[in-house]
């Protein structure tokens, strides 16, 4: 190794932005983090 350092730190490659995990898995057209209203139930 050209530098006398300990273990190699992890590469920055494939480091997804924070919040990217929230976007994946949602139904198209549905905003993430917004729960669908339940019919017949009023919220006050």
């Amino acid at each position: 190794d050209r530098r006398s350092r300990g273990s190699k730190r992890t590469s920055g490659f494939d480091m997804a932005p924070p919040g990217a995990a929230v976007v994946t898995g949602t139904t198209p057209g549905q905003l993430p983090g917004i729960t669908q209203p339940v019919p017949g139930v009023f919220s006050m």
Partner: protein
Amino acid sequence: CSRLHNKPTISPTLLLSNMYQRPDMATPGMDLNGQTMDQKKIQEHFEDFYEDMFEELSKYGEIESLNVCDNLADHMVGNVYVQFREEEEAAAALKALSGRFYAGRPIIVDFSPVTDFREATCR
């Protein structure tokens, strides 16, 4: 600058736009929390980045040259230029890197017309 900045359809050189972000990009010599940064730390940060680049890019072919702009001006800030020996290697790297992330930011990759970096400077 009077150069034509066209994007070739194939080239041994790739341009990765705005890849490198200096840790002291807001204020030279200071980190984002306003703490004074050691020149050695900044250099080390740069070398880590360079190492990441070299390691990843050498998976796709033989690297002829690897240039990282660590300037602080707006013009081509953080641009990474990588020249492979063969056009096909650059094409493979372009395909492999498109749509991926580096340090939480998307990788913007394109072919670059530059093949001789000594001649490439815009004046």
